[in-house]
Each structure stands twice: as structure tokens, then as C-alpha cells.
């Protein structure tokens, strides 16, 4: 019983140390913020939650603990690392405010742990700091610890044990020490060691420190180092920060040298690999510099950080490129100037992702590249509008030391109906065009037919509905499997079409008669059998009915949404799947009789679907966005507001950002 009690106590004590293994996101870009303020404000916490990895000064643990909790609440998948210098401490730290952990750390240091020269002077590498001796040559304290034991213990007991952190970030992880001063007395014998001896003793001691840390914090607690990459440390580390990329101290100081180091790190480090490329620039708006670092980082698996400079890592600068979801990587880096070679050298480097590509010009010359039968979209940004102007491109001119992030174009609307051959503009909820418009057209189906392309979980269209002249052809893997005739063989007018889709399968198909038909809704099951019909509006109306289907509230309850065709007031109705009216609301003024086109989709990424409407005729092309309860939450004109020809609406997550874009379609694009 006593043993059991002891085991439970030990488990409780060690619980924070047995942290859960972090799972890295598999989409890019991966972003890191090297934010070394000792306190974090509430607004800073909100902003910092957008990054994937945060390196926060350890004092935040004491000074802004609630903000760490807030950041985790806003971004549960974020990785937060505690910053601590590995080999130095600020002089006179006791006189600093809010330096609780440094003061605590300092209080345990003994005089024998300072790194000194042969004259006995403390060595300093950074203004107002003194270095500590990480070798095994120092005296032990009364607990039998050398400094390279003391530091890991401090990290384990004071930082890791709090459960606030996912890992530790050791600054100044050097594989040598002799470069600081040429008369270092590393073994405290009053004589300077040669550089080789000093460096060797330093390395041995440092490896001990890292090994101790690993042992004390457990395998899931991340350890990252910052400094010139030394291979002998890497097996203890999850990654390195390459500060001031390409830093002069790293592998020859060139882009090629730093990239060589960066790209080989995953093979040297332990999983999960978290390396950070940091670029700093006092000019926040030096977009070219920012892009150069970002796109270089994207050639590998690391996280990117861009901030002010080495004296001030504490910005929340956010760039247009950070908003892009490139998805998973689909290739390694290859050089467009050298037959897609993967041997690192100055060149025009490209890497492909599911949703886009990145290209870096690491040469000293402007480069022009023509894509062979490939069309890509520039980002539509608000910062560097000359570069991120949203243009569709088939060639690229890239300045030296510049990079660019490009979208792969997708002109296929998935999982929602579109009209074959219509021109669609792509809008977000605010009415801003997210990317260039496009003709959504599949040549194997009739022009102007309503099409629903059902995508599987990989985003591939595997089943299709094509509604034209009163018939619906159902295709599976491009093979027609049946034809539905919802309103009889004599009915040859248009149809409204919608489908409930799961992993490429049509769970329900619903249709509404088009203009000239009554407002009858037909519901088919997944075997393509007619389940039932109902009139959504007064059955003598002949404007038809437009339909949509989906789980509006995220509660698993499927609803049918209808809107009338021309000839009656613009009353949108929400029905249960059994055809029972649950709610209704007017999409436009009651006097508007032009008919309403509708679609449903999650435009704001909140997990609920919004209802989006557009006039079917005789009204300006005003898109309106309603909550599932019918509350107006947005509106905008999708084309020239004087246009009166009606606008078709549908939804699709064209840019894979987790929010569905609103697609406003016209039969004629002007």
C-alpha cells in the first residue's frame, strides 16, 4: 500500500514532465515567433496565438502566465518554448524588475561556474552579461552539480514542471568557445587552454548539459538550440534556430551554406523536428527580405520567423503570405535553372505543395522563368501589391534574393452545384475578391447544365450530377450509372439541384423545378430512389424553386433550404429533411419578385453553414449572407451594381483555407 502511495505521489510530481508528444501541423507555411519580451499584453497574446511555434522568454511564466493560457485556448495546437540562455546571465540581475526566474537562477550559481580567462576575469559575450562555464571542469556545488547539471535541473524543475511549456529554447548553443577570446581558462587552472582544448572541453560539457536536460524533461519535451550548428549536439535536439539567416557564422555565411545546414537538420535531430529560420530587418515593410526568408524556409520543413533585429525580438508582424494555406508538401526543393537538380547551389529553387508553390531566387541576378503549360495565381495581398497583386501568371520575373508564394489554380467547384460554363468571381465573406474569377466548365457535360462534382476526402471529384432539360444524369468515376427524371419525361425545363455529399458519395439528391415549373422539391436517397416530394411554395406558382441542402448548425440535422424563382416574394424557407417547414425569412425586400438563387456553406469557418443569396433576375447582383437563423450578416455587389441579369451563387473552398468562398456566377461575364 505504501509503495502504491509512493508511486502515485511520484506520478503526480512527474506528471507535468511526462508531457504529451507535440504533433506538428502538416501544412505550410509553418510560422514561428521569437518573442523575447518578459511580459505579454493581452492584445499581444491574441496576436501571438496565430503562430505555430512561439519562443517566449521564461519570465513570461511568472509575469504573464494567464496570457500563455489564453494563447493556448486560442490556438490549442500551438507549440510554446521557454527561452533561456544556456551559457550566460545578466550582470546584477537582482536589480532588474520582473526577472524572477533569472534571479532564482542566479541565486543558485556559485562563483566557480563563471567562465574566466587566464587572468581570472569573467568573460562576456554580450553587453552586460557574463558567461558561465559549461564544461565538466568546474567545481560542483554542495549538491554535487556542475553548471551543466544545474542548468538542466533548473529547466526541468522550474520550467518544464509547470506544464506551461512544450519545450525549452537554449540560446547560444555553440560547438566552440575559443572564438570569443583566445585566453580562456576553461579548466580553472590559471592558465589559458589552447583553442582546440578549450573547444573540446566546452563541447563535452555542453553535450552533458543537453543529455541531462533530455533525461530530466523526458522525450516529449522539445529542446531547441540557437547558434552555429554543431553536429555533435543535434542528436539531443529537436531542432535549431538559424538566426539572421543566412548568418555569416553558418557554413560559410552564404545562402547555399545555411540552406545546406538547414535542410540536413531533420536527419540529425530527434523527432519532432522543429527548426526555425529567423530573419531580422529593422524595416517591417521590407517585404522582399521577408519573402526571401519565408520561401527559403519553405524549401525545408522548418518554421519561419521574421522580426526586428537581434536586440529586439518582440514583434507581431504578420504578412499576406502567412495567411496562405499551402497544404502538404508534394516535393522537395529543385532548381529550375539546372534541370530540376537538387544539388544546392545559387539558383531558382522551387518546391511544390498541394495548394501552391514557392520559388526562391538565390542568385545575384534577376531571373525570368516561364512555366510550361502551368498557370499559377499570385497572392492577392494588401501589403506588397506590386508582387502580391492576385494576377494569374504563366511566367515569373524574380529579383535577386527574392522569393514568391503562388497559388495553384483550381477552377473546379466541388461539393456544391455550379452552372457549366458560367463565369464565377470568388469572394470572401467581406465581399473582397479572393482570387481571379474563372470559367467553371467541364467539357464532358452539357453547357449551362447544373453540375455537382462530389469530392472524396483527398479532394478528388469522383462522382458527378448533371442536370439539364429536366433530367439528372448520375455519374460515378465518369461513368453514367443512372438518369433521374424528377418531374416526368414531358418536363424539359431547367432544374435546380443540390446534394448532400459524404466522401464522394451522394447521400441525398434534391431537385427543384426551374422557371416555368411549380415549386416542387423532390428528394432522392443514396440509392437514387425518389423518397418524397413537397411543394415549398404555393403550388400554382410557376417560377420554380431553388434548393440547397446541408447541416446548417453543425448539429447533425440536415436541412433543406429553398428560395422561390421569379414571380413571388423572396421568401427563403428552411425545411427539415422530412419536408417540415421550420423557419423562413425574406432575403430581399418583399416587393422584389425577381426570384432568388441560393447556396449554403461555411463562409466564416465557424463550423456552421451560412445561407447565401443572389437575385435570379431583375435585381442588382447583390449577394447577401445570412446566418442559419436568417440574420443578415453581410452583403456586397458581386458585379456592376447596375447589372440586372441575375447572379448565380455557389460556394467552394477554392483556396483551401477552411472557409468556403462565395462564388458569384454570370452566364455572360460582362
Amino acid at each position, binding site marked *: 500500500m505504501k509503495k502504491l502511495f509512493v508511486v502515485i505521489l511520484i506520478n503526480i510530481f512527474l506528471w507535468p514532465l511526462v508531457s504529451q508528444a507535440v504533433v506538428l501541423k502538416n501544412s505550410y507555411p509553418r510560422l514561428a515567433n521569437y518573442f523575447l519580451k518578459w511580459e505579454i499584453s493581452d492584445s499581444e497574446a491574441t496576436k501571438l496565438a496565430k503562430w505555430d511555434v512561439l519562443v517566449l522568454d521564461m519570465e513570461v511564466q511568472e509575469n504573464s502566465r494567464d496570457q500563455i493560457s489564453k494563447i493556448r485556448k486560442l490556438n490549442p495546437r500551438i507549440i510554446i518554448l521557454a527561452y533561456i540562455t544556456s551559457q550566460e546571465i545578466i550582470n546584477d540581475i537582482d536589480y532588474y524588475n520582473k526577472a524572477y526566474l533569472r534571479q532564482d537562477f542566479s541565486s543558485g550559481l556559485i562563483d566557480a561556474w563563471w567562465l574566466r580567462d587566464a587572468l581570472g576575469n569573467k568573460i562576456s559575450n554580450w553587453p552586460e552579461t557574463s558567461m558561465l562555464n559549461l564544461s565538466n571542469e568546474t567545481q560542483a556545488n554542495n549538491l554535487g552539480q556542475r553548471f551543466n547539471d544545474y542548468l538542466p535541473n533548473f529547466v526541468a524543475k522550474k520550467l518544464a514542471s509547470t506544464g506551461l511549456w512544450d519545450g525549452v529554447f537554449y540560446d547560444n548553443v555553440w560547438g566552440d568557445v575559443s572564438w570569443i577570446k583566445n585566453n580562456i581558462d576553461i579548466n580553472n587552472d590559471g592558465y589559458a587552454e589552447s583553442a582546440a582544448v578549450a573547444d573540446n572541453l566546452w563541447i563535452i560539457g555542453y553535450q552533458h548539459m543537453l543529455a541531462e536536460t533530455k533525461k530530466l524533461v523526458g522525450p516529449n519535451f522539445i529542446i531547441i538550440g540557437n547558434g552555429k550548428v554543431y553536429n555533435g549536439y543535434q542528436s539531443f535536439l529537436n531542432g535549431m534556430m538559424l538566426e539572421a539567416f543566412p548568418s555569416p557564422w553558418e557554413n560559410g555565411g552564404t545562402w547555399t551554406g545555411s540552406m545546406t545546414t538547414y535542410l540536413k537538420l531533420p536527419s540529425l535531430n530527434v523527432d519532432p523536428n522543429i527548426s526555425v529560420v529567423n530573419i531580422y530587418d529593422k524595416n517591417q515593410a521590407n517585404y522582399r527580405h521577408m519573402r526571401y526568408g519565408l520561401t527559403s524556409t519553405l524549401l525545408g520543413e522548418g518554421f519561419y520567423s521574421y522580426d526586428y533585429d537581434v536586440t529586439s525580438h518582440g514583434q507581431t508582424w504578420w504578412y499576406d503570405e502567412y495567411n496562405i494555406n499551402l497544404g502538404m508538401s508534394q516535393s522537395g526543393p529543385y532548381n529550375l535553372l539546372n534541370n530540376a537538380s537538387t544539388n544546392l547551389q545559387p539558383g531558382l529553387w522551387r518546391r511544390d505543395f498541394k495548394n501552391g508553390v514557392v520559388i526562391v531566387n538565390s542568385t545575384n541576378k534577376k531571373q*525570368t522563368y*516561364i512555366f510550361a503549360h502551368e*498557370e499559377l495565381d499570385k497572392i492577392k495581398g494588401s501589403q506588397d501589391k506590386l508582387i502580391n497583386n492576385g*494576377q*494569374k*501568371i*504563366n*511566367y515569373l520575373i524574380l529579383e535577386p534574393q527574392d522569393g514568391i508564394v503562388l497559388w495553384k489554380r483550381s477552377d473546379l467547384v466541388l461539393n456544391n452545384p455550379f452552372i*457549366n*460554363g*458560367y*463565369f464565377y*468571381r470568388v469572394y470572401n465573406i467581406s465581399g473582397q475578391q479572393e482570387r*481571379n*474569377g474563372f*470559367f467553371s*466548365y467541364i*467539357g464532358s457535360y452539357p*453547357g*449551362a447544365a447544373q453540375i455537382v462534382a462530389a469530392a472524396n476526402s483527398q479532394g478528388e471529384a469522383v462522382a458527378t450530377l448533371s442536370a439539364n432539360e429536366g433530367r439528372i444524369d448520375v455519374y460515378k468515376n465518369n461513368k453514367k450509372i443512372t438518369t433521374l427524371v424528377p418531374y416526368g419525361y414531358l418536363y424539359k425545363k431547367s432544374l435546380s439541384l443540390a446534394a448532400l455529399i459524404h466522401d464522394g458519395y451522394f447521400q441525398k439528391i434534391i431537385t427543384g423545378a426551374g422557371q416555368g415549373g411549380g415549386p416542387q422539391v423532390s428528394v432522392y436517397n443514396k440509392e437514387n430512389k425518389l423518397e418524397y416530394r413537397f411543394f415549398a411554395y404555393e403550388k400554382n406558382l410557376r417560377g420554380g424553386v431553388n434548393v440547397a441542402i446541408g447541416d446548417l448548425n453543425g448539429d447533425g440535422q440536415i436541412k433543406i433550404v429553398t428560395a422561390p424563382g421569379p414571380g413571388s416574394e423572396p421568401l427563403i424557407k428552411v425545411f427539415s429533411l422530412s419536408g417540415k417547414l421550420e423557419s423562413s425569412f425574406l432575403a430581399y425586400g418583399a416587393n422584389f419578385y425577381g426570384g432568388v438563387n441560393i447556396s449554403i456553406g461555411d463562409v466564416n469557418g465557424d463550423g456552421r453553414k451560412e445561407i447565401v443569396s443572389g437575385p435570379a433576375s431583375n435585381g442588382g447582383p447583390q449577394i447577401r449572407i445570412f446566418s442559419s437563423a436568417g440574420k443578415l450578416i453581410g452583403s456586397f455587389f458581386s*458585379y*456592376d451594381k447596375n447589372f440586372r441579369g441575375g447572379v448565380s451563387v455557389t460556394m467552394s473552398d477554392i483556396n483551401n483555407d477552411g472557409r468556403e468562398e462565395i462564388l458569384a456566377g454570370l*452566364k*455572360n*461575364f*460582362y
Partner: protein
Amino acid sequence: MIKLIHHYFRGRWREYYVKSHWHLVLDLSLTIVIIFLIAISMGLYFFRPIFPNFSIYNSPVVNLNNPPLVLDFFVDQTVISQEISVPLRISFKNNGTVSVNSVLINLNLHDDNFVLTKINLASSSVAVKLDGQELILDKVAGGEEGKIDLQVYFSIKNSSKRTIDWQAQSQYNFNRQLFKATKTLPTLKIAAKLNVTSGAYYTSPQGDQLGIGPVSPIVGIPTNYWIFWEVNSPSDFKDLIFGSRLPQGVELEAGRSLLSGEFSYNSSTRQLIWKVPEIKGEAGIYRLGFEVRIIPNLHQLGQVVPLLDASRYRAVDELTGKTVSGELSSLTSDLEADSFNSGQGKVINQ
């Protein structure tokens, strides 16, 4: 009656004549004057004097079923163009011996959708006066015949209604009789107008980027443009065939937007064909869009690059059965239809 007269005069005898015989003389004198006046009036009524050059009185007999003036109307062309004018010939013949004067001819339309806007006199063998929609023949002498050629113009309110039913009404006085006649003229069918356009774009009229690549085109770098063929008409057509050819150096790309009909490309002949079996007047615009690519070479430096040869089309007007055809000019990288990029078609060097 005699008794009545006798009774009347016996009364006057007793009352007046006995008293003074001058009363009797006065009554007799007045009676004689009245009888004389009646006789003169009757004589004048039945008097038919014959004066030279006063012929109205020469044709005292008129057959109302066969009036002396015969008018016929001829419309050779019953399918007329969208400009809506038609040549109308009126032939006339006075079968009588006496002139017919002031013959009024009026053209009437049955449908408010059409308005007769003017009549132009092309030629006439008699004096004709035009007064708006009315035509007045001053005089058609006895035995005279001839013809009048007119051009009649209409305007149309709703161009989807394309048949004109109309009549000619004539009237004149002859021998104190008003002669009126109405003749139904051949129904006119207005040839439907087929609006056909062909244009090359890099940017849509509302500012959407359609093409890709540099504008102006750059030597060695591909530029893609979109070409749109559009057809529309307020009337129904069938069997539209729209064709053209890609010049050498222009390649057809995958981008397409086909709302109706079939599109084909023969890479050997470089022929593009768009066929639409039916064009419904109420359906709006029928459109084909396709994407083409050029990669300018050094020889084209400073020149505008041809994108599409002249296009030809034909279609059959459902109402009239007539074939409408035409030709559209070739398209170049100068993008005349593209308000954003027009005039930027000359190839430049990088």
C-alpha cells in the same frame, strides 16, 4: 274633294265675292301665278341641256359592282430587311370614259407593333400627291392606265413580332357616288437580325483577368487570350454554323466556356467550328469562349500578332426560312474589344 272645293268657293262667294268682285279677280290671279311657278319648277327639274366640254353628264349610268377605276397592289418582296421598307407598286386603270378625280389611297396596318413612318414616291405615270400616309391621285382620265412605284417604310416597336398584316384603302367620288374599296396586301415578314460578334480579350469588361502572360506580348514568352463568339437575336434561328481558322503560330489552349452547341477544332486544317442547332429568341446571348496562345518570335518584334482569321457564320431564320450569313473581321493581339488592353498588341523585347 270637288265637294270640298265647291264648299270652299261657295263660302268665299258669300263672304267676299258678292260684296266685291275684286276679291274674285285677286284669287284668280294668285292661283294662275302659283300654277305658273309650279310649271317652271317642273320644267327646270326635267331639263337636260347639252353643252360642249361638259362631260359629267355623259356617263349617267354606273355599275356599282364594277366601278370605273380599278386599282391593284403588288408587293414582290414579302420578306423584308430589318431596315423595314418594302417596294409597293400600284397599278390603276380607268375603265370608264369619264375622268376620276381625287383618288385617295391609304395604307393601314393591323398591328400597333408597327408604324408606317413614310412613303417615298419612286415613280408614277400620273400626278400623285403624298400627304403623310395618304396618296392622292389628282385625276385619272377615262381609259387611262398606269402605275405608281412607292417605297413604304415601317418602324417596329417589338422586334420579336415579325409579321406585318396590312391593307390598302381607296376612295373617290364618281357621279356623286363615293366609291370605297379595301384590299388586303400580302403579309410581310421581317427578316430577323442576327447579332454576331467575335472579340479577343485579355481582361473582361468588368476587369477580370481572363488571359495570362505579358501584355504587350514579349518575345519568347507565351501570352494567352480568350476569344468570344457571341450570337443573339430577338428571333428564332436554327442551324448556326460559325467558323474560323487559327493562324500559324496560334495554338488552341484548354480553357473553354461553351454554354450551348458543339465546338470542334481540326488541328490539321486549324479550323474552328461552332454549331448551335437552335437559337431561341428569348434565350439571350449564345456564347462560346476559348483560349488561344501565342509565343511571339523575334520576327514579330514590333508587330501586332494575328490571333484569328476572319470568321464566317450562317444560320437559318426560322420564320422566313432565309439563310442569314456574314463575315467578321480577323482578330489580333491589339484586342480592339478589350477596353483595358486595346492597342497593346505590338510585340516587345524582354
